[in-house]
């Protein structure tokens, strides 16, 4: 049976709660309600109020107490109701959770996964549309994941919950119930190790590197470019930290052209990071400037006209693709 993105994550949580008696879930409205989007539905009924905590509206205490629970032997899934609200628990993440292993010279490890719905294109405006992964990519000690398919979501979530490192898990909420991407999930204990990009489409003329919902924009752009005879490769990096540089470099060695697409603001976003790494390590491969298609350096505005203007679109991606092949 085909399952959607949300169900895939829900299954991962249920399986890990079952498999790991020391796992705790904490977040706002995740228990009685089952989460704003229903990702945690059924967990509290099954595992009780002790292991599935309806927290007060206190992001800093949610993260901070997750740190303490982990210190005392637990694995913790902490939900941000929207990933945007992570700003309210920011210090606990970057300065406490992320550094705990480092500053204790390995004495303490942190089995904490912070996950939440993310991303724009849904009319969510400034505070329900963010992709703020770059803040954390610039804060050493946190792994960052952003899958684009149900099976990736499940496999990566299960890996995250077993990795004794802090993991930030960006769930594209526009994909949660997108039937177009629903799929059969692999049988059994399906786990995907971090650091492995996925080539979503092969091509020889240019490489789109992307993640999250922009994967679909890139695939669409590749379709359109193909109509004009341009063969674009599409790489879904799946995990940002660690990043699978090898797969990207291999692709660039073949296509000699790079366009990175993501929906965070451009300045200091992860698209720029990929460009900078390839400009260094793949300089000789590049036959055209490595480009970025990202959100403009603006917040995400509400009205559809405005939102679409500032976010990457298939048109903008096609244009960037054309620019690099014609260079």
């Amino acid at each position, binding site marked *: 049976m085909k399952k959607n993105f949300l169900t895939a994550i829900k299954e991962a949580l249920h399986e890990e709660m079952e498999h790991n*008696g*020391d796992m705790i879930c904490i977040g*706002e*409205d995740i*228990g*009685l*309600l*089952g989460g*704003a989007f229903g990702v945690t539905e059924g967990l*509290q009924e099954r595992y*009780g*109020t*002790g*292991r599935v*905590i*309806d*927290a*007060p*509206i*206190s992001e*800093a*205490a949610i993260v901070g107490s997750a740190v303490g629970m982990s210190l005392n032997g637990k694995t913790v899934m902490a939900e941000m*109701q*929207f990933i*945007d*609200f992570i*700003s*309210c628990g920011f210090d606990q993440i970057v300065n406490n959770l992320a550094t705990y292993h480092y500053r204790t010279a390995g004495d303490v490890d942190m089995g904490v996964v912070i996950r939440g719905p993310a991303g724009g294109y849904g*009319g*969510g*405006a*400034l*505070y*329900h549309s963010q992709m703020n992964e770059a803040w954390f990519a610039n804060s050493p000690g946190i792994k960052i994941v952003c899958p684009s398919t149900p099976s990736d979501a499940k496999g990566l979530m299960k890996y995250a919950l077993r990795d004794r490192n802090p993991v930030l898990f960006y769930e594209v909420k526009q994909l949660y119930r997108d039937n177009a991407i629903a799929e059969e999930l692999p049988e059994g204990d399906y786990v995907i190790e971090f650091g492995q990009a996925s080539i979503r489409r092969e091509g020889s003329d240019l490489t789109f590197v992307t993640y999250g919902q922009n994967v679909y924009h890139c695939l669409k752009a590749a379709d359109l470019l193909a109509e004009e005879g341009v063969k674009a490769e599409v790489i879904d990096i799946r995990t940002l930290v660690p990043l699978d540089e090898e797969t990207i470099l291999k692709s660039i060695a073949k296509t000699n052209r790079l366009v990175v697409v993501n929906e965070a603001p451009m300045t200091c976003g992860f698209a720029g990071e990929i460009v900078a790494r390839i400009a260094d390590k793949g300089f000789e491969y590049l036959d055209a400037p490595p480009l970025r298609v990202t959100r*403009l*350096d*603006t*917040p995400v*505005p*509400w*009205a*559809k*006209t*405005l*939102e*679409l*203007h*500032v976010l990457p679109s298939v048109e903008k991606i096609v244009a960037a693709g054309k620019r690099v092949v014609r260079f």
Partner: protein
Amino acid sequence: MRYNLGSFPNARNLGERNLTAKNGSATATRAKASDEPDQLPRDLLTREEYLELFRQLYLARYFDVRLIKEKKKGRLTGTLYSSHNQEAVLVGSLFGLRPNDWISPIHRDMPAFFMKDLRSGWDNPDRMGMTIEEVCAQVWCKAGSPGRARDNWSHIGKKAKHIIHSTSMLAGTIPVAAGVAYADKLDGGDTVVVTYNGEGSTAQGVFHEAINFAAVHKLAVVTIIENNQWAYGTPTHLGYPLEDYARRADGYGIPGFIADGQDVFDVYDKVMQAVAWGRSGKGPSIVECKTFRAYGHGDHDDDRAAKYRPPHEVEEGRARDPIAIAKKVLLEKGYISESESTLYQAEGKSAGQTTDEDFPPEVVAYLKRGVDYALKSPAPAAEEGERWVFRV
């Protein structure tokens, strides 16, 4: 490993919660008796003012009812956080403010934006509140909104009208309110800043930082806690260990008033005491208004809320309709006659059950103006998306 689940607070075991303020049971620190007025603030109101308060309840209700209907028809985008059944909190707290006092409404307080300083005349162009046109343009996501539809729903405001804009981050506007009050105090002013917050939001760290700062500097900030018993899907006892959220005040040695949030006159009394306390330089205070959320957290949550909330609690909570309670007072006071009291019967009805006949015609007409304006207002031009990142 032994699991010991029984001793964790259980959302499913709500027990009996007291949805109404118990008279005289306010355990929170109160303004000293000597500071309490000889008569209740409402005793100074004229019959006309009583009637105006009453009329404003209808206006707030009608606005919400209309939005619910529009949303159901798919004509609005974004989430509607209904203020149904919580109107007395808004009307009662706004009514006694001076025109240039400041307010900061949040998601469940949409009517507050145009009801601020409504006393200066619904159509008074100099009124220190937003117009119904502006607010409707915002709800309809149009360029005619003061924020030009850049942020959604309740995230508007107007500097010139002393209405502070909020972000989504709950309680995040209280420090802003404190800063506004600080600047005013430094300039020798005596305006009061009223902030609105749900009870769940009081758990945020910035709530504490802001109230603490305001208490140290004796700033005229009145923090209204709209205790509607639920923070989305979380009942009150999982957000705070005490029943009365006004007791948050005790930790700062500031007054914590408790009002019956369904009784517009009680809200008026308590808020006016808090406002007087602030205006006289004595500092911040908290007013907890006990109320009840009629529907889901947002309109997307209506169906789920019907599952996670005990039906008897919802019934009991909705039963104390603020319009009915105010009507009874007006009748008792002889301010309206029996026959007048049956003219408009919005009370006790869900949004879908009401018709325009349940509301005074001037209320219906007022909103129509706003909606007409909104419908005519264009969507913002795409290029505006990149404007105003910086002031140039």
